C-alpha cells in the first residue's frame, strides 16, 4: 500500500490544474456519501450498544436474589465519592554515561455519578532534563499531556461504553502498567509506541467489559473507534480496533490479542498478543507482549519475583522484588520516530523496594545492543502514589 501511495503522488502532482480541480471535485463528491455512510454506521453501532444495554439492564449488584437482598440491607456509607489520585516520580538514568533527570507527576481525577457513570481524567506533567553543551546544569522543557479524559457508562454487567479520549487498548502496557508506581521497570518497552497512537491515546468511542464465561474462564474485551485529531496535546489517529483476553483464574493466567486497522495513511493492520501469568505456588509475575506492524515488530518478557519466601530478614524480603526484562525490536519498512531506528535488543535487571504502600524505590541496570553501538543504562527512581478524597466521608473508615 505504501509503495502505491508513494508512486502515485508525483503523477498527481504532474496533472494540469484543470484536471486536478476536476479530480478534487470528484473526490469530494465521492467522499461525502462515504463519510455519511460511515457516520450512519457509527450511529448504528452506538444505538445497537444502547439497545443491548437496555435489553440486559438490571441493578448492577443484583447477581442473585440472596445477594440482592443483602445489598439492599447494606448501609449507605460505601457510595463512591469523587477522588483525586495520582503519582509522582523522580527518575534518573545514565545512558552511555550521560545523565538524564526525569521528574514526572500525574494526576487522576475520578468523579462517579450515580450508579453507572464515571468521569475520569489523567494529566501528566514531565520534564526530560539533560546537560547541554556549553551550559551548566540540566535543562529541559515541561511536557503536558492529557492522557485520557473520558466518560464511562456502565450499561450492564457486561458492557461499559466509553466516550472521549481514552488510552488505546492495544496490548496491556499502555492501559494497565504505564503509571510509574505500577510498572516494575521504569523504562518503556521498545514496542510500546506500536498501536497506541501519537500520544498513547485515542479519541472516540469504546465498548468494553468483562464477564465469566464459565467457572474457569473470564473473558474481557474492548472494541473502539478513534477519530483523527491534530490538536496538541489531544492528538490521535483515525483507527478502529479491539482487544480480547481470556483469563483462567485457577491457573492465574491471562492471554489475549489485539488488533488495529488504521483508517488513514497506509491503512495498515497492526497485531499484538499479551500474556500475564502468576503461578499459584510462587510470588512471581511474568508479563509478556508481542506486537507486529509495518513500523516494526518486537516482543518483551518481564518476570518479577517477590523475595517473600526467603527464610531470613522476612520483613525486608517481602518488600523486595527482583525483576528482569528481555526485549527485541526489528525495524519495519515504514518509519516511526517513537520507535528505535535500528534493530535493537535490550536486557534489563533490577530491584524494587516497597517502603510502604505507594512508595517505591527502584534501581536497575540495562544493556542495549544495536548497530548504533552498545550502551549501558543505569536507572534509579523513587515513585509515590497518593489518593485524596474530595468529600467528607471518603476519609472515614
Amino acid at each position: 500500500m505504501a509503495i502505491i501511495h508513494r508512486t502515485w503522488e508525483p503523477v498527481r502532482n504532474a496533472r494540469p490544474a484543470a484536471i486536478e480541480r476536476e479530480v478534487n471535485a470528484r473526490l469530494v463528491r465521492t467522499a461525502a456519501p462515504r463519510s455519511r455512510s460511515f457516520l450512519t454506521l457509527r450511529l448504528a453501532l452506538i444505538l445497537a450498544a444502547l439497545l443491548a444495554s437496555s435489553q440486559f439492564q438490571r441493578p448492577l449488584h443484583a447477581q442473585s436474589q440472596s445477594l440482592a437482598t443483602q445489598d439492599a440491607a447494606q448501609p449507605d456509607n460505601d457510595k463512591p465519592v469523587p477522588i483525586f489520585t495520582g503519582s509522582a516520580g523522580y527518575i534518573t538514568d545514565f545512558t552511555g554515561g550521560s545523565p538524564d533527570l526525569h521528574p514526572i507527576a500525574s494526576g487522576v481525577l475520578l468523579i462517579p455519578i450515580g450508579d453507572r457513570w464515571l468521569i475520569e481524567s489523567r494529566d501528566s506533567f514531565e520534564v526530560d532534563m539533560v546537560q547541554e553543551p556549553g551550559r551548566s546544569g540540566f535543562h529541559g522543557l515541561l511536557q503536558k499531556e492529557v492522557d485520557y479524559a473520558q466518560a464511562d457508562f456502565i450499561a450492564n454487567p457486561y458492557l461499559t461504553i466509553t466516550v472521549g479520549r481514552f488510552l488505546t487498548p492495544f496490548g496491556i502496557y499502555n492501559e494497565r502498567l504505564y503509571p510509574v508506581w505500577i510498572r516494575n521497570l521504569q523504562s518503556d518497552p521498545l514496542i510500546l509506541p506500536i498501536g497506541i497512537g501519537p500520544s498513547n491515546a485515542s479519541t472516540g468511542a469504546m465498548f468494553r467489559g468483562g464477564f465469566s464465561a464459565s467457572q474457569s474462564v473470564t473473558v474481557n474485551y474492548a472494541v473502539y473507534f478513534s477519530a483523527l485529531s491534530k490538536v496538541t496535546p489531544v492528538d490521535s489517529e483515525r483507527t478502529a480496533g479491539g482487544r480480547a483476553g481470556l483469563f483462567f483464574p485457577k491457573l492465574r493466567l491471562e492471554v489475549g490479542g489485539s488488533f488495529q486497522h488504521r483508517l488513514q495513511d497506509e491503512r495498515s493492520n497492526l497485531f499484538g498478543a499479551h500474556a500475564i501469568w502468576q503461578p499459584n505456588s510462587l510470588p512471581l509475575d511474568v508479563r509478556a507482549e508481542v506486537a507486529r506492524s509495518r513500523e516494526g515488530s518486537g516482543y518483551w518478557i518481564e518476570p518479577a519475583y517477590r523475595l517473600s519466601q526467603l527464610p531470613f530478614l522476612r520483613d525486608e524480603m517481602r518488600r523486595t522484588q527482583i525483576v528482569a526484562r528481555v526485549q527485541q525490536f526489528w525495524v519495519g519498512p515504514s518509519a516511526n520516530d517513537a520507535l528505535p531506528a535500528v534493530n535493537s535488543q535490550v536486557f534489563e535487571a533490577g530491584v524494587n523496594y516497597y517502603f510502604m504502600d505507594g512508595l517505591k524505590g527502584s534501581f536497575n541496570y540495562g544493556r542495549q545492543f544495536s548497530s548504533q553501538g552498545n550502551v549501558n543504562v543505569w536507572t534509579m527512581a523513587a515513585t509515590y502514589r497518593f489518593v485524596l478524597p474530595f468529600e467528607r466521608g471518603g476519609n472515614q473508615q
Partner: protein
Amino acid sequence: MNKRRILVALSALSLASAVFAANQETKQAPAIAAAAQEQQPTADADAPEPATPPAPANAKPTPRSIEAAERIEGEKRFRTNCGRCHQAPHKFPPRTMATVIRHMRVRSMITDEDQRLILRYMTQ
C-alpha cells in the same frame, strides 16, 4: 467497504459477547451459594465453643456464612484480578474504595461480580 465490514464485525462481536454473557449470568449465583454452604461449618468452627450444633449439610446459608464466604471469595478475586498489576492490598475508606474499584472495573475489565466481591473484601 472494509471499514463497514470492520465496524459490523466489531459491533457483532460486542453484541454477541453481551448475549453470551447474559446466558451465563444465571450460572454465577449458585457458585456463591455453594461457597456459602461450604463455608458455613468452617465459619461456625471459628468460634471457641459453638453454642449450637453444626448445621446440617443441606441447611440454608445464613447471612454470616454468606459474608464469610464472600470475604474469602473477595480476597481470592483480589489476588487473581488486581494482583496481575498491583502489589499487596492497601485498604482505603469504603467510599474512596468504591470509586477506586469502579475505576478499576472500567480499566481492567473485571466482572460485575468481581467488583462487588473485591469491594466488600477491601472495605471489611
